[in-house]
């Protein structure tokens, strides 16, 4: 059974591995370029590969030896709280992505109004009144920014 501290260390290793893979890919790509183009990427990538490899090695050794994470081992209750927070955070991230997609399809103004109302009503459980007021306010702000201030905002793929 994995201890909570193991999980913290594993997450750290995953991020380190991500950086390791990006660096390895970057170095492999750089080898195909002209000499002048690859000098700086190699000068940066090789030391970076060394740094991240040594870091991963340290973390893996620490995981096998004691499983000790930096700081104290979180209790089961703290782990549960972390999971709840993580789910809420991921849910908000999904809303943000939906807002971005909506902006791309419908334009910033419309997406601001619609996504705001939906998020406040469905996720934050705010009242209809508060949701509609905020949605209208942000829609108005977008219109002011684009029409009066002259900011060029993405109009969306849908022709309103």
């Amino acid at each position, binding site marked *: 059974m994995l201890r909570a501290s193991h999980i913290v260390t594993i997450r750290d290793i995953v991020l380190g591995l991500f950086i390791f893979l990006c660096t390895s890919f970057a170095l492999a790509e750089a080898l195909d370029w002209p000499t002048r183009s690859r000098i700086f990427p190699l000068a940066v990538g090789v030391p*970076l590969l060394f740094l991240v490899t040594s870091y991963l090695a340290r973390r893996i050794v620490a995981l096998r030896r004691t499983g000790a994470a930096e700081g104290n081992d979180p209790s089961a209750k703290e782990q549960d709280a972390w999971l709840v927070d993580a789910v809420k955070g991921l849910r908000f991230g999904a809303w943000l992505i939906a807002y971005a997609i909506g902006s791309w399809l419908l334009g910033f103004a419309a997406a601001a109004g619609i996504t705001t109302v939906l998020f406040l009503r469905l996720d934050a459980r705010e009242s209809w009144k508060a949701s509609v007021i905020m949605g209208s306010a942000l829609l108005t702000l977008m219109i002011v920014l684009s029409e009066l201030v002259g900011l060029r905002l993405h109009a969306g793929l849908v022709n309103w």
Partner: protein
Amino acid sequence: MIEAFLQGLLDTVALANLTFLLLGVCVGFVIGILPGLGGPVAIALMLPFTFDMTAEASFAFLLGMVSVTATTGELTSILLGVPGEPTAAALVLDGHPMAKRGEAGRAVGASLASSLLGAWFGAFVLAISIPFVRPIVLSFGSPEFFMITIVGLTFVAILGTGNMHKALIAGWFGLLLGMVGLDPQTATQRYTFGVLELWEGFGIVPVAIGLFAIPEMVELAARGTSIAGNATSVGALNGLWRGIRDTFTHWWLVIRCSAIGAFIGLLPGLGGAVAQWIAYGHALQTSKTPEEFGHGSIEGIVGPGSANNSKEGGSLIPTVAFGIPGSATMALLLGAFVLKGLTPGPEMLTDRLTLTMSFVWMIVLGNLAAVAIALLVARQIVLVTKVRGPLVLVVMAVMVLVGAFSARNAFADVVVMLVFGALGTAMVALNWSRAALILGLILAPIAERYLFLSISRYGWGWLGRPMVIALAVVAIAAVVVQARREIEGRRHKAVENR
């Protein structure tokens, strides 16, 4: 010279010019608060409106705007965790934690006071340096500029606050990410994957917003409370004055960081985003309580706050004296010179010296007006931290998406912001240094350009130049000091645990 200095003051406070100055401050106040819409965007939007103005009125309006955007960008960094400008990202690290524990007023007070003092320092440097600026700027060649980027990079290690290894990895990873785009030497596409929008690399604005604002928004969404949470906030006004007093308590830090900001601003091409991080690293390294940095240290606000504003005065020096813009904002300000039929260079230091001196007063009075306005509305501004979380989140979501898009009018930047937002959230959760990553990203193209120029021009002989050696010693000393600090800290901890 003194006559020109006094005449510049009289010209600045003339009714018409003063009116335009205050108008510029008001416009800059609003624009500075919106992320992604900082000094450069403000000037780009407002420049056409200055066609019919006199030279003095035009610069009063534009400099009034520029003076204040740096300050107001810091307010959103503190209150919302959203950098109003990329140059205000450092204030998220300590300002926002202070807001979360109910000390928003104190953080805002310190930010305003340090910004004002930093701006005045930068204006003072502009005023006194005009006779001396030419030999200073001309003595710095590409080797010295390269070494300054190295010094900036070594602060990566210091910004790690306790884990230099992770900070170095983050910083060097930032360097790698900074190479995305067209190679400036050979125009080879590097890591663009055929995406046209990546030819210019990652925009600093979407990266800054993604790395610093998105994680704060995710955390706010997870907490479900207001920004200040359940913290019993100090009364806004009391907190404000305490923050202002804190700035004067750390007066020596203000002077040192203002000097750093003015110096960085003076050097063309380095960009304002560097000044805040070097000042932050310096404040951390010289602090008696470095463990507080990243968790709400007042020095973490005072240092970068003063550097952020002093750099504007510094960046005016090469702009006015040589027509070499010290920053993106100054590059656009050169457009105003052209519109008014002015030629940066000797003319500005001789025939138009009065106008040049009036720039000094415009920065002084513009910042004073900005701080006065901010203090007037400070109580209302601080109340933002008490608003329900979801209501703040929807406003922030609009701000970050518009901010990321508006920087280059490219929807790809919104995608970049979201990707770096995911990375930033992971880094915060796992205690990796975002500051180091963004500093590496900013410095990569600068370092590469100056390295190639140095080698092309001097071979490897540039390594023996005196200033290069001096800067190398500074960089090595910074790493050694930090390494010793970490080793001693670990030893202390091991003794306590026994």
